[in-house]
């Protein structure tokens, strides 16, 4: 059992309830006497509120209450920002849940209606009369940083929320001495995360006891409790947050949102359960977006293709307000990763966090790392073209050599372990790279435009040592926790602080327990998502649940094993140091036939009839695991595309990847994470993009207008792996949740640029819609 369960592609224990329609998500919940809330959102991107008249709405059938900012006065504190970057001049603008005198994006909440039914609540929204005085708006971070741009917040001059800088090595000298300097202007377009479950909150406040229970679609219930307590004033011990089944997050369910606090306020004022569930268009307007970078990048290199320096300026759109973790995304999770898989001796970056009249921006799958990987990997391909080298060869000349216990890079990080050339070699082999190059050459002779795009990446995940969190301004810890409890029958409960929502930890964590303690995974129930019955934890994002929470669990299991060994030794009348353990059995060395099973030990520990002196009853242990370092998964991806020069259509023909997340607990789950991640990144390259007009109206306001990848436009994803354990993780594992997204956007970008290179096309803005590709080809022809 021990060796078989770790690494075994067992079925997911989550799935039976999910495939029968019996799983309950937040919006599936109904409580007796429940009311429904609907939010009145600003139709203007920027406006003063002259007055609000809710009298007609209050008269409407079924309406119980209408609240505006005046009703929240003294009841709701501002929505907090929790990543206060030091040494960056960070200013946090006031972020009220209900807009006071100014609205700053289309979707800002002006009022809430609470009614007996959802229809009645929505009908009454139309009866609220708001007198707006529209103001000029700005939506591009680059334009919002200009001196004459409309100003969003009085205390944020120039709309600049922060200016973060990174300097490592002698960048001036690197560029002064370079044989080759390449420049690239990149727009990482704004993306809408599109978790298939929209956000929802059900709040139930009991006035008699002052207790508030909140069901919410969150990725991190303990953070939501912490923040909700600070905003609503309900003490943490009276506030219970439950994340029931959660339908995907991808970063958009990290933040605590105004609508959540408003729903809590409604229940608090009315003493009845209140549910709010957003529509998809509300989700597009008001649930956080991702990316939105304008990047100016320069790369310095020798004529042999050795990269000697990187210099970048980034204007990072923050939206109208700073969302919970937003400042850390384009800085810590982006700038510190600019050395990538290479030893680059000099790196400098300036990141300007800029407010615009748009939806707040937060983490979105990959969060900062895709934007860093993109910069580097597209320039590495440019360098290969410039020098007439194969892109694989340029990468080989720059890779950090394989290492298994720490490698520092100039940005200040120390990667844990890596074998970047090993991953690329395996990729080239599995993909048949040389053959593909030959096919490409033949196709070109026949007037067909095939392109190959490589991307090699390393990412930072498993956030992270809490001491580092404090040093970089993160207003929380980043450890994870686990409690393991053996019942008298030998069945096991595992309670974790993290909160998986699709990643499958109910299965993989049972596999960890099974491997460590020799019980069947079917005998292990993993409990998560309820702050009243799980230990504190910081949540599921940044590919950290298995990387940090899994470590907490492994350490806890080993504590259980140590205690069980003491009890077993007592039962066998042997000395503890003479005991051995294998596959859930404790025995005196050399006498495996006379063994006590973990189940027998659990029974004795629970009845405690015959315990060793000084040993407490029960077989239970807990751990708060604070990792000594981050983990650094890596890999190499290849996209193969064909571009039709007549129509500009891009056909993604093959996608091959090699990812290294260390030893895999469940390869089937790892493969699924890679599939989904890759497709999300492909979406950015080929189809997706949030578009605002000049007035700040969201033109991509519904699924009809925002192109999410669909099954008929995708090939099979060919997934391979290498295994390089993390030296500091108790199980050697790294994260895999974001890997696919980090590599795939630039892999597809490089493939398309490779395809159209013979046509003289230098640059195309993402997403690669047929029109854009076609126009770029026409422009190149004319030039």
């Amino acid at each position: 059992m021990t060796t078989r369960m770790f690494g075994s592609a067992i079925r997911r224990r989550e799935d039976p309830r999910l495939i029968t329609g019996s799983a309950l998500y937040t919006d599936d919940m109904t409580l007796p006497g429940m009311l429904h809330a609907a939010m009145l959102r600003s139709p203007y991107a920027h406006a003063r509120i002259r007055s609000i008249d809710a009298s007609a709405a209050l008269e409407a059938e079924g309406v119980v209450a209408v609240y505006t900012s005046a009703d929240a006065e003294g009841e709701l504190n501002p929505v907090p920002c929790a990543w206060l970057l030091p040494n960056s001049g960070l200013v946090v603008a006031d972020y009220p849940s209900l807009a006071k005198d100014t609205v700053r994006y289309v979707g800002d909440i002006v009022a809430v209606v609470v009614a007996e039914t959802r229809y009645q609540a929505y009908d009454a929204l139309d009866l609220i009369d708001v007198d707006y005085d529209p103001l000029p708006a700005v939506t591009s971070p680059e334009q919002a940083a200009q001196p004459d741009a409309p100003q969003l917040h009085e205390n944020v001059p120039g709309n600049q929320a922060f200016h973060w800088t990174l300097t490592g090595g002698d960048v001036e000298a690197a560029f002064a001495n370079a044989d080759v300097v390449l420049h690239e202007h990149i727009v990482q377009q704004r993306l809408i995360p599109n978790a298939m479950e929209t956000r929802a909150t059900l709040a139930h406040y009991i006035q008699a006891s002052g207790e508030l229970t909140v069901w919410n679609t969150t990725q991190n219930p303990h953070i939501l409790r912490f923040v909700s307590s600070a905003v609503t004033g309900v003490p943490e011990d009276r506030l219970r947050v439950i994340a029931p089944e959660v339908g995907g997050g991808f970063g958009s369910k990290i933040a605590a949102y105004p609508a959540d606090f408003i729903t809590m306020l409604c229940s608090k004022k009315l003493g009845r359960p209140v549910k709010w569930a957003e529509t998809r268009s509300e989700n597009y307007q008001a649930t956080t977006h991702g990316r939105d970078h304008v990047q100016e990048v320069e790369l310095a290199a020798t004529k042999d293709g050795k990269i000697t320096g990187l210099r970048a300026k980034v204007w990072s759109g923050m939206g109208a307000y700073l969302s919970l973790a937003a400042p850390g995304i384009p800085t810590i999770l982006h700038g510190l990763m600019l050395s990538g898989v290479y030893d680059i001796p000099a790196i400098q970056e300036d990141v300007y966090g800029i407010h615009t009249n748009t939806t707040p921006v937060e983490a979105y799958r990959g969060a900062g790392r895709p934007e860093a990987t993109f910069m580097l990997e597209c320039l590495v391909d440019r360098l290969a073209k410039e020098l007439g080298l194969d892109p694989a060869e340029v990468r080989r000349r720059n890779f950090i050599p394989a290492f298994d216990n720490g490698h520092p890079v100039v940005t200040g990080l120390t990667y844990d372990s890596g074998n970047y050339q090993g991953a690329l070699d395996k990729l080239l082999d599995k993909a048949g790279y040389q053959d593909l190059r030959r096919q490409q050459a033949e196709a070109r002779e026949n007037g067909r435009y095939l392109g190959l795009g490589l991307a090699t990446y390393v990412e930072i995940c498993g956030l992270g040592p809490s001491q580092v969190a404090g040093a970089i301004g993160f207003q929380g810890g980043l450890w994870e926790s686990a409690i393991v409890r053996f019942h008298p029958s030998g069945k096991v409960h595992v309670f974790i602080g993290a909160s998986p929502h699709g990643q499958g930890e109910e299965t993989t964590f049972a596999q960890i327990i099974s491997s460590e303690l020799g019980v069947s995974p079917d005998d292990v129930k993993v409990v998560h998502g309820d702050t009243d019955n799980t230990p504190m934890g910081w949540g599921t994002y940044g590919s950290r649940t298995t990387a940090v929470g899994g470590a907490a669990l492994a350490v806890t299991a080993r504590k259980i094993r140590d205690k069980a060994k003491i009890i077993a030794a007592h039962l066998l009348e042997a000395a503890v140091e003479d005991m051995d353990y294998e596959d859930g059995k404790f025995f005196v060395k050399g006498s495996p036939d006379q063994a006590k099973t973990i189940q027998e030990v659990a029974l004795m520990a629970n009845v405690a009839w015959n315990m060793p002196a000084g040993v407490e009853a029960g077989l239970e242990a807990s751990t708060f695991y604070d990792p000594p370092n981050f983990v650094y998964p890596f890999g190499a991806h290849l996209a193969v595309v064909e571009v039709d020069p007549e129509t500009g259509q891009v056909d993604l023909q093959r996608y091959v990847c090699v990812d290294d997340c260390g030893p895999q607990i469940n390869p089937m789950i790892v493969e699924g994470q890679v599939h989904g991640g890759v497709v999300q990144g492909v979406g950015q390259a080929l189809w997706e993009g949030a578009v605002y007009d000049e007035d700040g109206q969201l033109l991509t306001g519904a699924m009809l207008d925002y192109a999410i990848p669909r099954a008929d436009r995708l090939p099979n994803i060919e997934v391979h792996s290498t295994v390089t354990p993390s030296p500091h993780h108790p199980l050697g594992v790294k994260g895999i949740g974001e890997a696919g997204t980090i590599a795939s956007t630039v892999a597809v970008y490089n493939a398309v640029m490779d395809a159209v290179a013979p046509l003289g096309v230098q640059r195309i803005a993402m997403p690669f819609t047929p029109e854009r590709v076609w126009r770029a080809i026409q422009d190149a022809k004319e030039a």
Partner: protein
Amino acid sequence: MMPKKSYVQAVINGESREFLCEPRQTLLEVLREELGLTGAKEGCGDGNCGACVVIQDGRLVCSCLELAVESAGTEITTVEGVAGRQELHPLQQCFLEDAALQCGICTPGFLVSAKALLDKNPDPSEPEIRLWLANNLCRCTGYDKIVRAVEHAAERMRQEA
């Protein structure tokens, strides 16, 4: 005065069901809120994501786009009716075996949609499966394992037929 609600009778998952609904209520809302069948989800409300699909008189329909009153006299299958009383449908079985889901919110839609496909075409090619399932959105899986699960279920159903 006209009554606010209409009386509707329909056969849902093989059972005759009666309910009262407002003329403007969608079939999805009635399934979820009146009949306690919360398997179908509202993913978009405008027919783009397929999370709400049901089979109605042999046709796949978005229950968010149909008014509940229009369902009078029809036969409807939701995800709750895909399995038999005792055992899972081969599609559900293959979704389990192939891990064709992650967060699970879109899964009821995919199962119902795939069932409608296999009801019509017991031996679909991969491009046919992909084209059919292009009406359903999934953000977690990248579709690969879903396509595989539908292929395997089709194969199993042909063998059992």
